[in-house]
């Protein structure tokens, strides 16, 4: 089987299998699965709202999917994208509030830098801890998630909230920090849909991540470390440096969620805004087989499910939007079961056993 077909096959099996299992569940609760899926996908693909919101929801998932991907490629499991994007979103808002007097030409780059650098910094902490002391990044990124959430909540509540505002959000950022919604450029596409320039930035990042990992010496070193750290070391590569670098790049990508959220959507920091983007990013990276193009496809799928779920809730009798989480869960299960599928396939091609 050619490599591309094989790379596409397993995620496809996972998705189709998840829809079949989900369909059985829908049947069990007493609805017509075809009708429910029709609602789900039909609403996600409608113009302009369905497509607009699907792309909008896909934006943070592309960023976090890429973040997790870069970690994976270095043999690191960054579960901390959630914390990194909270820190970054707050930092973005902080710059947008604090330096409100700057012209947009300066302020927007500053805000971008805030998102990228603060995300990178927050992720580099577990990177340094692992490189220096060997403490496991999974534990440290999880713990830093809690710290990040608590920290930004504290600053929002006690320092950056408008007096008397009952909602946990900061004061608005300067209008000069707003980035354009795509409705501004696309005729017939309303500006009320929050799809913004950050989506294009996410696509650009996919290209950049690809070039970085597969076309630069740094990417080579990161991938070598992830593939076989002993061989990387033998080749004169400093594993410690790669761990820190990969975590920082990963965090920077997660941090760019803040650009979409703060500069393109709410124009302020809104506490608890993330719909588990950091964690869904893990599923996106896995389903996308740790490849930037796969990440785009997987993020689009998850975003479509997320948006379509709202309509399932409203229009079908028994099924609720929880079906989306069920589907996502089953997809992840099947992706994780890839080893099982591979084993099934291998049984039919004994060529591989010949080698033994």
């Amino acid at each position, binding site marked *: 089987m050619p490599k591309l077909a094989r790379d596409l096959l397993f995620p496809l099996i996972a998705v189709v299998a998840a829809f079949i299992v989900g369909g059985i569940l829908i049947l069990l609760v007493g609805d017509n699965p075809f009708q429910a899926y029709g609602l789900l996908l039909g609403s996600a693909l409608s113009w302009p709202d369905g497509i607009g919101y699907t792309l909008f929801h896909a934006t943070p998932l592309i960023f976090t999917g890429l973040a997790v991907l870069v970690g994976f490629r270095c043999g690191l499991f960054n579960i901390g994208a959630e914390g990194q994007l909270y820190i970054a979103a707050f930092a973005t808002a902080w710059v947008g509030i604090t330096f409100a007097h700057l012209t947009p030409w300066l302020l927007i780059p500053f805000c971008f830098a805030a998102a990228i650098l603060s995300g990178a910094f927050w992720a580099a902490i577990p990177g340094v801890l692992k490189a220096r002391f060997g403490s496991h990044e999974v534990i440290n990124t999880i713990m830093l998630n809690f710290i990040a959430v608590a920290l930004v909540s504290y600053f929002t509540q006690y320092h950056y909230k408008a007096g008397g505002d009952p909602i946990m959000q900061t004061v608005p950022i300067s209008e000069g920090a707003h980035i354009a919604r795509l409705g501004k450029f696309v005729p017939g596409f309303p500006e009320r849909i929050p799809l913004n320039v950050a989506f294009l930035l996410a696509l650009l990042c996919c290209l950049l991540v690809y070039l970085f990992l597969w076309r630069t010496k740094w990417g080579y070193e990161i991938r*070598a470390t992830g593939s076989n750290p002993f061989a990387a070391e033998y080749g004169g590569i400093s594993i410690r440096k790669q761990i820190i670098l990969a975590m920082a790049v990963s965090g920077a990508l997660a941090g760019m969620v803040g650009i979409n959220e703060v500069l393109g959507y709410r124009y302020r920091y809104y506490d608890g805004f993330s719909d588990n983007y950091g964690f869904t990013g893990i599923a996106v990276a896995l389903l996308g087989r740790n490849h930037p193009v796969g990440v785009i496809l997987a993020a689009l799928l998850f975003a479509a499910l997320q948006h379509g779920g709202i309509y399932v809730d409203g229009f079908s009798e028994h099924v609720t939007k929880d079906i989306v989480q069920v589907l996502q869960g089953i997809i992840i299960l099947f992706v994780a079961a890839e080893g099982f599928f591979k084993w099934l396939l291998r049984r039919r091609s004994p060529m591989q056993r010949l080698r033994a």
Partner: protein
Amino acid sequence: MLELRQITKRFGDVLANDHVDIVVKPGTIHAIVGENGAGKSTAMRIAYGFYTADSGEILVDGQVRDIKSPHDAIALGIGMVHQHFMLVETMTVAENIVLGAEPGSALALDLKSAGAQIRQLSEEFKLAVNPNEPVEHLSVGQQQRVELLKALYRHAKLLILDEPTAVLTPLEVEEFFVILRRMREQGKTVIIITHKLSEVLAISDEVTVMRDGRVVGRVQTKDTNAAELARLMVGREVLLRVEKPEPEVGQTELEVRNLSVTDAAGTKRISDVSFEVRRGEIVGIAGVEGNGQTELIETLAGLVDPAYISGHINFEGRDLKTLGARVRRELGIAHIPEDRHRRGLLLDFSLAENSILGVHYRPPIVAFAGGIFLDENAVQRRAAEIIQGFDVRPPNAALPARALSGGNQQKLIIGREYHVAPKLLLVSQPTRGVDIGAIEFIHRQLVSLRDNGCAILLVSAELEEVTSLSDRLLVIHEGRIAGEVDPKKATLEEIGLLMTRGH
């Protein structure tokens, strides 16, 4: 005892066995030799019921038998020991042996009678295995004996052993052969699959040689010799002895003085070692594996934390001790590691990507010093040069390194390390798991590198290899240099004595 008649087996496009005839007489040790992929394992797996043949028949004790599964084979008294042991580490020897053939009723496992039976078998064949020992506490050699017991416990009359010595040290091989001879005395029949000719000559009564899925020779061991077997295996004349001119020794490249290395647990692995390697000579290090060779080479290559090292390592007058692996490579030190899967290769990376490991960050792989982007043309050019120059097969730079046979993986590594024209080459077990044809090639390459003025430090567990290649030979024992001998004059016994007893 066992006869394969006209066995043919096809895997997709590959004809793994092409009308194979093998006759194994009862009470003999029968060797099946051939290079990797010659079809010897396939034939034996058919005999053991792992695969079914496309055509042909299997006779056991003169009767045509239908062996559809290992279960059938076991019922007919055929046992097989695989190259990779199939043991549950946390279970005891007895538990492992009865696994799948548990004595007693469904509810009560009768390990006691099994234990007694195992003890009896162990004594009969002098295997010295304690049934109550957990397998994880056993050495590799002992684990292999547990595998033998597993087959004997199931009343095997014929034992098929797939590359049984690959995992053993030279001393363990000797012990293992004693066991095999004892089994033959007790009336068992043994088939041993191997590609090590010295072992074939030492242990077998008859030999079947296979090449490209066909049987190309059947000989009595006493009527043959290594050269003939090698020619049959490879299909052309093979030079088993290394031909090399007198060395033209130049200045000292590497000087090691009072080197000591401890491991992370604080145990001394290298104690007070001093030697030097000069331009144009191969200095060999012989020793039983695990006597500090790994640590010595890794220390010289810059893969050991300087905090664990004391003493001096001078390369062209410069102290290497605190320099990292990258700087040492830049100074002209190349390294062919003993474990190519662990150290030498990125198995999931393509041959092209593997061919630049170690030079991936500098010109010509990146366009200019400090550049970032890999120059894809330069990468492909380098890969092509290595693949052509070292006959790496298949010659496809896009394949992952994992897809290559051991010998071709090794050729890729050697080609990569040669490509930098090293001043000092650290090379460890260069021909482990490599076919005879490739061994000859690798040896010739090492000698030609020496003749071009490279200083070579060679570690090998194969005594013949290290004595025939080296110009000077050091023997290492428990992390110390036990002595230096002249490889042209010293006998294997002399070296063996230094290897095992020190002085």
